[in-house]
């Protein structure tokens, strides 16, 4: 799994490539928490279009990002969900809790 960040104005986009599972979800969590809690970036966007699989620990990292964002009145957005990623969010009844878009243009124009 690789995670990199693009910054522009009040937005940070994290581009994630590979599977998010127990081996690397702490890395995702750490990046998210730094962006939200320390930098307080107004809009954090997760590009998941190159993520084929997310396990429960990956979902937990996203939920932590969402909760931290809400606590600070910031926005946390996901886009590009694979069928597998969409399924785990549906199974955990979180799909409607997150702000989810199909692609980057939609996410940034929201």
């Amino acid at each position, binding site marked *: 799994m690789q995670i990199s960040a693009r910054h522009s104005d009040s937005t940070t986009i994290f581009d994630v490539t590979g599977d998010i599972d127990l081996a690397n979800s702490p890395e995702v969590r750490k990046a998210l928490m730094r962006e939200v809690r320390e930098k307080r970036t107004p809009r954090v966007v997760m590009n998941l279009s190159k993520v084929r699989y997310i396990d429960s620990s990956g979902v937990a990292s996203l*939920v932590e990002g969402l909760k931290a964002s809400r606590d600070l009145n910031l926005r946390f957005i996901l886009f590009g969900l694979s069928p597998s990623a969409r399924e785990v969010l549906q199974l955990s009844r979180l799909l409607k809790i997150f702000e989810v878009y199909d692609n980057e243009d939609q996410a940034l124009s929201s």
Partner: protein
Amino acid sequence: MRQRDSTGVSPASNDGFLLKLELHSDPQLLTVVRGALERLTEVFGFSPPDRRSVTRAVDEALTNIMRHCYNGRTDQPIELYCSRVPPRPSQVADGLEILLCDQGPAVDPAKFRGRRLDEIKPGGLGLHFIRQSMDTVEYQRSGNTNQFRLVKYLQPMTQSRTP
């Protein structure tokens, strides 16, 4: 999760035996197991959503073993057996049985309840994913071994005659 009360099983002697994997409890190996399960479930004849379900359930069960049975130690043994099983009375098609064995301490079945989903909080989702994904989820302690048994049955329309 139902706790089995029968004696230990011998999956390798099962006529339907398909595959055995032995691995250390290292999270870096989860992606390797997922790759094997994706191919096996494809060959077995599952639909794409059911392939993802089986792969997800096995991945989450292995994650639970690594985190809770072995407390994050990465050098402990895990065995995974895959077998074809005949239909149960309520089913018309064969199933894929996955048996996961570890040498960690006995698991308290009360911890298999999982959490409610009406709270938005991280954690506690793995067991829920396993239950939602599989037709049968069982646990038994046999000697010094924890055995987690997962079964997913083919849908009649997609049943394959191979392997």
